[in-house]
């Protein structure tokens, strides 16, 4: 079967794959240089007490014109190069990854890590997603960030992020992946805190970095374990040897996978390390779209898919992945129900959707996880960018009237569809996609994950998988609710911005809405790359639109195949019916109609609520307050982790270090001084006393000599 996918044949000839990584780096260097130059000028302005202003009054300087072309340009070029490689790979018969080694990165007597990239079907998909979605977001940024004084700096960061993200997805070994892994974390840090003079935003960036580092700790230890087990850290060698070296379900591989999972929860914002992502919304909205929705946060999913062999060998580890994913999906969705900040809703939605991906890769449906990663990248990027367009419009409107209202609070919006029809339409497309309504992209991917979760219900840990399946179904319904609520609150009903402000609301410029439209198209048709067999036969086959079903699955088969084989051999693979009976088709129809019904009902309900603008509103009570306050998890962490650590640190400094350790050292000094003081007691100044001690000394000597 797979032969069909890879079509015709012959070896895969990569086309300058290094260029994909190199181009964003070049972009970073160029933009970085421009940013440094611009930074000097704006610093001079600040010193003279003015706000730096590159936009008004005089012509836009070169430092703020060039990034418009460099920033999106390099990423676009990288996308083109990736596309060429993709086409070539499609035309080739590739079963083994192609490794391109550039130089020896670290080589000691025993450890050898090459600076190498790995080209296979998985990294190809990720490259396309990163550069493709990345390009669109870069283009959007030109409009969104155009008036920011730090424009070149922004693009430098963004390019750097793409650079690291590509290292992450293309690296051929764990350490190289780790470079990207931490690199994107760092970029996320500086981009969240992009407006660094705002304390809250800087705090959010710091929080993201530190929480990510907790995950990185797990990843590091997992690497050590793998290294001591295999003596190498290259993917190919480890995955080749793993089935023979590691025991299925053994302690070692379980430990490795759990540690990797810790890393993944940090990067992909899963329980318990998800807390940084909602705060990360402090960054510019395109950043949220790119990093905190489409690419970086999916790195954990990518990593699990990449190490699928290990996870397949560790059923407990896989179950943990799926459980955490399901729990997160449900948990975050409930919080999303009660948020008012448009970006926060989307942030919790992202966490929830990432939970789905975790369920996908956790239950062993690696292709399904990646599939959802891809479609999610489309529609969530669209949602974020759409919300960015809304915020942009709101910001300008509020700016004109010098209103202090929050441009991100949905209570201040309402009825925006009149002002921004394009945004309104594309946002609805994305909403339907994320709600899982046929034929939008989200339907195919989400449904597949839920299906596979249910299909594990008869194997080992069956009850758990049933639970996961139920949670996923519930979360899907919640998704439909909170997304509909978001749409209705933002675009429908009465306008709550205020009379004067409403005059200034207008649609985003083309440079912003064109990427939205492209993403909307992808959100509609993106799901067709992996139409389930059952649906293809019954719905689409008749139209002859798709040559084959489950294309992505087959495409990824060379990567995920070994894992699936292990799964089939040890765990019995997937059943052909859901836990309570029924085939794939039945459940697909059921879920999509249920979702549609939920959308319609909740649209009705939400429309009926009379929202007040934020400054007139009161804080909700009861359960809604708990949800609005995000279950008080931040407070909990603060009390259980942050404060104790700070207290411990103060204790370590004041009591242990200054008190005990330095106290002992100084105490020795004082002891010496005390001895000295005692010695001064003998220095009476009286000649007689001196003579006395002299005689005593003589006595001692005499006594020693004479006897």
């Amino acid at each position, binding site marked *: 079967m797979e032969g069909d996918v890879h079509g015709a044949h012959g070896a895969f000839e990569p086309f300058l794959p290094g260029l994909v990584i190199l181009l964003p780096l070049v972009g970073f260097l160029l933009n970085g240089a421009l940013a440094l130059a611009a930074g000097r000028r704006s610093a001079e302005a600040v010193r003279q007490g003015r706000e730096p202003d590159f936009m008004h009054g005089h012509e836009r300087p070169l430092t703020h014109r060039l990034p418009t072309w460099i920033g999106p340009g390099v990423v676009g070029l990288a996308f083109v190069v990736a596309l060429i490689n993709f086409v070539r790979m499609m035309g080739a018969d590739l079963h083994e990854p192609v490794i391109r080694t550039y130089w020896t990165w670290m080589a000691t007597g025993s450890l050898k890590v090459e600076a190498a990239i790995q080209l296979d079907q998985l990294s190809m998909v990720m490259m396309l997603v990163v550069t493709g979605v990345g390009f669109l977001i870069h283009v959007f940024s030109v409009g969104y960030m155009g008036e920011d004084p730090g424009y070149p700096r922004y693009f430098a960061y963004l390019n750097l992020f793409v650079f690291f993200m590509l290292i992450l997805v293309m690296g051929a070994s764990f350490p190289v992946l780790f470079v990207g892994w931490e690199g994107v974390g760092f970029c996320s840090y500086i981009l969240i805190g992009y407006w660094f003079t705002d304390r809250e935003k800087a705090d959010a960036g710091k929080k993201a970095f530190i929480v990510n580092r907790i995950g990185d700790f797990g990843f590091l230890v997992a690497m050590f374990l793998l290294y001591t087990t295999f003596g190498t850290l290259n993917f190919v060698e480890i995955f080749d040897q793993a089935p023979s070296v590691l025991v299925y379900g053994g302690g070692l591989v379980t430990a490795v996978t759990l540690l990797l999972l810790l890393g993944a929860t940090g990067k992909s914002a899963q329980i318990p390390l998800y807390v940084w992502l909602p705060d990360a919304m402090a960054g510019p909205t395109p950043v949220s779209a790119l990093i905190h929705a489409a690419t970086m946060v999916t790195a954990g999913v990518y990593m699990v898919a990449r190490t699928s062999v290990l996870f397949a060998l560790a059923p407990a580890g896989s179950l943990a992945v799926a459980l955490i994913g399901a729990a997160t999906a449900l948990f975050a969705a409930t919080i999303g129900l009660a948020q008012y900040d448009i970006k926060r809703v989307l942030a919790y939605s992202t966490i929830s959707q990432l939970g789905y991906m975790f369920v996908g890769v956790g239950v062993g449906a690696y292709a399904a996880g990646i599939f959802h990663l891809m479609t999610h990248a489309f529609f969530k990027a669209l949602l974020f960018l759409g919300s960015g367009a809304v915020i942009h419009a709101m910001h300008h409107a509020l700016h004109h009237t010098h209103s202090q209202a929050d441009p991100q609070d949905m209570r201040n919006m309402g009825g925006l569809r009149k002002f921004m029809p394009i945004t309104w339409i594309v946002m609805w497309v994305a909403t339907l996609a994320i709600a899982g309504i046929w034929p939008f992209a989200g339907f195919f991917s989400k449904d597949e994950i839920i299906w596979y979760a249910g299909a594990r219900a008869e194997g080992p840990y069956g009850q758990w998988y049933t639970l996961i399946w139920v949670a996923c179904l519930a979360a899907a319904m919640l998704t439909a609710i909170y997304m509909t609520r978001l749409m209705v609150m933002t675009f429908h009903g009465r306008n709550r911005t205020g009379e004067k402000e409403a005059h200034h609301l207008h649609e985003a410029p083309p440079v912003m809405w064109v990427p939205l439209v492209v993403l909307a198209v992808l959100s509609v048709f993106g799901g067709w790359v992996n139409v389930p067999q059952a649906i293809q036969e019954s719905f689409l086959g008749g139209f002859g639109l798709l040559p084959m079903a489950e294309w992505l699955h087959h495409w990824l088969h060379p990567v995920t195949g070994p894992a699936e084989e292990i799964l089939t051999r040890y765990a019995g693979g997937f059943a052909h019916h859901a836990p309570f009976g029924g085939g794939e088709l039945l459940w697909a129809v059921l879920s999509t109609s249920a979702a549609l019904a939920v959308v319609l009902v909740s649209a009705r309900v939400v429309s009926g609520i009379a929202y007040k603008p934020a400054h007139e509103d009161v804080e909700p009570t009861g359960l809604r307050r708990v949800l609005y306050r995000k279950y008080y998890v931040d407070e909990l962490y603060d009390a259980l982790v942050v404060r104790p650590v700070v207290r411990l640190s103060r204790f370590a400094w004041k009591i242990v270090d200054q008190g005990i350790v330095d106290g002992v050292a100084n105490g020795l000094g004082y002891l010496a001084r005390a001895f000295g003081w005692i010695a001064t007691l003998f220095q009476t100044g009286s*000649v*007689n006393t001196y*003579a006395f001690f002299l*005689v005593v000394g003589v006595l001692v000597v005499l006594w020693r000599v004479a006897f």
Partner: protein
Amino acid sequence: MLIEALILSALLFGVGTLGVLLRRNAIIMFLCIELQLNAVNLAFVALSRYLGIDGQVFVFFVMTVAAAEAAVGLAIIISIFRHYETVNVDNFNLLKW
């Protein structure tokens, strides 16, 4: 007789020491030191009776040095007295740190 002389020398030396330790008058302390010197001289002389003339030569030198010492020491005491109007050593505590 030698042993007896040596014992006498030891006793005189002890008495001299006692004087140095007990007296506060600088001149008397000085005198006690002279007594100690004499005790040693006695031992030298007594032994030279049996070992040869060298001991007596030593005593000669000791006496000379004692003379020199007395001259300088008394001069110092005089100048100290001029300054402090006393020779009580308890009043001189410059040696104290």
